[in-house]
């Protein structure tokens, strides 16, 4: 049983909607392994296929091709009511003709559990999501955040092997969303259930997940821990979608033992770590995060050979930090994010020339 640590395993799953002439490929050969007890996030823009993948795991749709395994056994052709997998819907989908407690007990009732067990589990769930006082309320008599909790409790009550969450926080306001993010992490810890979370909010994905799969146009582009994805995006889409990124086009110089020499637009050369097999003289895209950039006055350190030169076009104050929008002589726009400390405030003025500097190891070479 070497599958025991893997909760959900999708193998070459494709989903095509529609007929012959107007078909839409929602998922294109997706293979992902999601570990037991993991908070796994499917992240991507709307229409990237993340919700379709979730619906395939829930059983609302069946894959056109490929297999889905739950703890090693094939489930892709089972109807939803035969899968030990529950969903928290984006719209919550609470039954309006039932009370909070009846909603939470519904799944157990449908599993023909004895009444005493249903009552005990419902009470336990109400306590878990802190909704004990509202147990006899109708679902339309409680607030959006409370509905969210009931939806969670209802999906957790039958103790599924895997919990699917389809953008569950998107309808909440900012503050409530922050609260629920922490709440979800707590619930996942307390229940020990595998969570598969769908979102288009990259910040949400980075803060909550154990691992993230970035999706676009029906494909999984990169799977990894949040920090890995942020620091080492595998391609341009991932780098662009997660956080802010500056892209620089540069030319490859000589490559030797794991390091590549890259010629920057300003003529300076840097040596960058890279496993990619790059041909000499080929053009590559480099990504650098705005917070990795240092700005220097060209006059302050005349001996220092700055990597790039640029002109300050715009300065935007954000409270904790300030965004400096720069333009390189080649026309490329860049952005530097510099934390505000008393010392650094108002160092540069719009229109002034600055030197742009960064640690070469912060550069990420991207596949095309």
């Amino acid at each position, binding site marked *: 049983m070497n599958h025991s640590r893997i909760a959900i395993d999708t193998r070459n799953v494709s989903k095509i909607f529609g007929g012959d002439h107007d078909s839409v490929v929602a998922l294109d050969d997706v293979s992902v392994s999601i570990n037991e007890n993991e908070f796994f996030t499917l992240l991507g823009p709307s229409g990237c296929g993340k919700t379709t993948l979730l619906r395939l795991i829930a059983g*609302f749709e069946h894959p056109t091709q490929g297999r889905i395994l739950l703890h090693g056994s094939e489930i892709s052709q089972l109807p939803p009511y035969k899968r030990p997998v529950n969903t928290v819907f984006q719209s919550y*989908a609470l039954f309006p003709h039932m009370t909070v407690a009846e909603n939470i007990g519904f799944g157990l009732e449908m599993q023909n559990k004895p009444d005493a067990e249903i009552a005990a589990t419902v009470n336990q769930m109400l306590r878990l999501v802190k909704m004990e006082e509202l147990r006899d309320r109708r679902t339309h008599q409680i607030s959006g955040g409370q509905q969210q909790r009931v939806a969670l409790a209802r999906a957790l009550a039958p103790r599924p092997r895997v919990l699917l969450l389809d953008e569950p926080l998107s309808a909440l306001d900012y503050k409530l969303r922050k609260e629920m993010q922490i709440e979800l992490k707590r619930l996942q810890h307390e229940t020990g259930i595998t969570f598969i979370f769908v979102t288009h909010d990259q910040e949400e994905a980075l803060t909550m997940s154990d691992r993230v799969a970035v999706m676009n146009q029906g494909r999984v582009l990169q799977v990894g821990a949040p920090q890995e994805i942020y620091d080492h995006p595998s391609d341009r889409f991932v780098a662009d979608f997660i956080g802010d990124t500056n892209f620089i086009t540069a030319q490859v110089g000589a490559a030797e033992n794991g390091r590549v020499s890259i010629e920057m637009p300003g003529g300076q050369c840097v040596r960058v770590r890279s496993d990619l097999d790059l041909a000499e003289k080929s053009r590559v895209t480099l990504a650098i995060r705005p917070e990795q950039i240092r700005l220097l006055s060209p006059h302050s350190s005349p001996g220092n050979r700055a990597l790039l030169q640029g002109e300050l076009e715009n300065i935007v104050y954000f409270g904790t930090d300030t965004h400096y929008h720069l333009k390189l002589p080649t026309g490329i726009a860049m952005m530097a994010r510099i934390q505000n400390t008393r010392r650094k405030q108002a160092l540069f003025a719009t229109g002034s020339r600055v030197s742009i500097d960064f640690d070469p190891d912060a550069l990420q070479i991207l596949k095309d």
Partner: protein
Amino acid sequence: MDANRQDDAMAPASKIERTARKQQTRRHILLTTPALIVLAAAASGPLIIMLIYSFLTAGDYGGVVWKASTQGWFKVFLHKDIFDDALSLQDAHISIFWRSVKLSLLTTLLAVILGFPTAYFIATRAPGRRSMWLFLVTIPFWTNLLIRTFAMMEVIRNEGILNNLLMKLGLIHTPVQMLYTDFAILSGMTYVYLPLMILPLYASMEKLDFSLIEAGYDLYATRMRVLRRVILPLVKPGLVAGSILVFVPSLGAYVTPRVLGGGKNLMLGNLIELQFGQGRNWPLGAALSITLLVMVMIALIFYVRSMQGGPRQHG
């Protein structure tokens, strides 16, 4: 000083407002009066006439004699023997009442069985397509009821389309008598009133959030249990409205039982018509009409009751 000036400024404004409101109220009354008169005259007028007639004596050649009598009401359920004055239940009337209620309930049931999947089908089509399907449902309304009923007769009579088809298929050897039976009335009424079931059912299904159905499946409910525990409670208002819309006119149906029942299988509507026509017993006809009205009202009370306790008390 300041306060005074403000009062002065306020006073004319509120006076204008008050006059405007008074004018508006008067205009509302004036505008609604004609409709109210028509409604009062057309709805309660005939009812009052019926109620009065039911307590008068029948004239020898129809009409009424202005002499108070309870004979009309008496004859609704009771029968006095011509020779020995022995009282017995009016069996003929009771069997007609029973047939009316039975056939109306069966019509409603059939309409639910046929209408529910139809409405569900329409409600699950793409929004642009739904209006086309609804349009198809309403097409029968374009033709006169009498003509549609005669068309039905053509289908089910002994040499009709249905019998011919069954004989050609070898399922039967001699024509089955379908016309002039309760079956004929039942199928005729179901055909006529089916759209009245589909339309309100569709209206409540269209509002149904289909993610609730998915939530039901997700929480281990099989198809039947999703239907019973999720869909039915939520479309109950439409189901009840459709049932009333089918049951009430079925109870008083006249044309369908007359044409397809062949005058042998009377329903309430035919019985009432008979009293005003050949029977020449207007007080009895009036009393029967009011009895029918009371039955409808009882059905409506059930409707209101089930609506009040409906979606809220379900668990």
